[in-house]
């Protein structure tokens, strides 16, 4: 559920690293360089990149449409060609039977079976239609935090990688302990670090 939907789920990251002086030029160049590339007409297995938050087919960002006040609002799009395990299994078994019959042998070696699996996987991936997933994000440039609109750990890991590749900046998930460090007086940091659970019974 994205940023503009009626109900959203999100996590917060802090952005660590030095921001370049001419930030908006830098951002424009980097976002364009990591914009999403369509793989509908190729055989590529995976594609990941930025698209407009309003339209997953827009990776041109006319008039820097990702800029909103002091924020950058973008969507990460990932397209994957996937083969369902049951489909792969069916095609492997079919091919194994065909080969056994053709060569008049009772069973195939492990190596042969692996080769069949690899070939079938390749053949099926080429036939598969890329499945899109889109996740929104907004980057508050004033306090250097990012909201990412998914609670899936897998999506978060892909997002952290894409963000780092695009902007050369690290994201750190703001779990309670790290969020606490930003809210307390610096002289209480040692106390926070040494803190153990309280028995509330």
């Amino acid at each position, binding site marked *: 559920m994205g940023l*503009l939907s009626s*109900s959203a789920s*999100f996590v917060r990251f802090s952005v660590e690293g030095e921001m370049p002086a001419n930030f908006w030029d830098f951002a424009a160049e980097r976002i364009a360089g990591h914009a999403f590339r369509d793989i509908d007409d190729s055989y590529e297995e995976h594609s990941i990149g930025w698209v407009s938050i309003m339209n997953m087919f827009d990776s041109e960002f006319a008039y820097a*449409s990702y800029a909103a006040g002091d924020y950058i609002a973008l969507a990460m799009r990932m397209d994957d060609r996937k083969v369902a395990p049951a489909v792969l299994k069916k095609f492997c078994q079919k091919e194994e039977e065909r080969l056994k019959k053709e060569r008049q042998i009772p069973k195939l070696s492990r190596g042969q079976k692996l080769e069949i699996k690899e070939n079938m996987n390749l053949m099926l991936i080429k036939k598969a239609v890329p499945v899109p997933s889109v996740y929104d994000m907004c980057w508050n440039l004033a306090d250097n935090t990012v*909201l990412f609109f998914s609670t899936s750990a897998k999506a978060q890991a892909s997002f952290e990688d894409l963000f780092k590749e695009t902007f050369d900046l690290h994201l750190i998930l703001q*779990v*309670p302990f790290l969020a606490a460090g930003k*809210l307390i007086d610096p002289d209480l940091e040692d106390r926070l670090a040494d*803190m153990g659970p309280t028995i*509330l019974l």
Partner: protein
Amino acid sequence: MDLVDIIAEKRFLGQEFVTWLWYKSEERGGAIDIPGMGDVSVVFEKHLLLESGEGDSREKVICQGLQSELTEARTGLRMGKKLEQARILLGHGEYQWNLTIRASMFDLKSVKVPKTMAASEESDDPEAIEGRLLEKISLYEQALQFVDELFRMYLQVRLSNDWEKEVLKVRTWINAG
């Protein structure tokens, strides 16, 4: 400490905070006075998830009920279960937010923000879209700000010498439920 260790070792921090928040919200009948913000209503509703055990032997219990007093969940606390997820209503002035907080990670799920514009007023020109985006972002950030301020209140007492006294109050509340 790297993030994986922090998540494992400090898992209790968010869970303890949300348990304290539940106690705090009931202390004054659903309102908490946040310094600098005034009264914010904090109501635990509908859905609570508690867990016990660690790692692979972790068990989860969900307590749900529209008008319930969430007695099962309180019994769970008395048994030593930890509050991991809660559906909370936050109210400030005329505005109201509903969200589910996952205590150990601080994920906010199914966040509903106050509706501020009728659907018919929504237009598709770039300026209107930018305005809508900024407004939505600001409402999400406000929800986070409430959570931050409540967390700050908890940390202030948690890291002070008054924590022992506060723990006694929380224990009395748990046992009274």
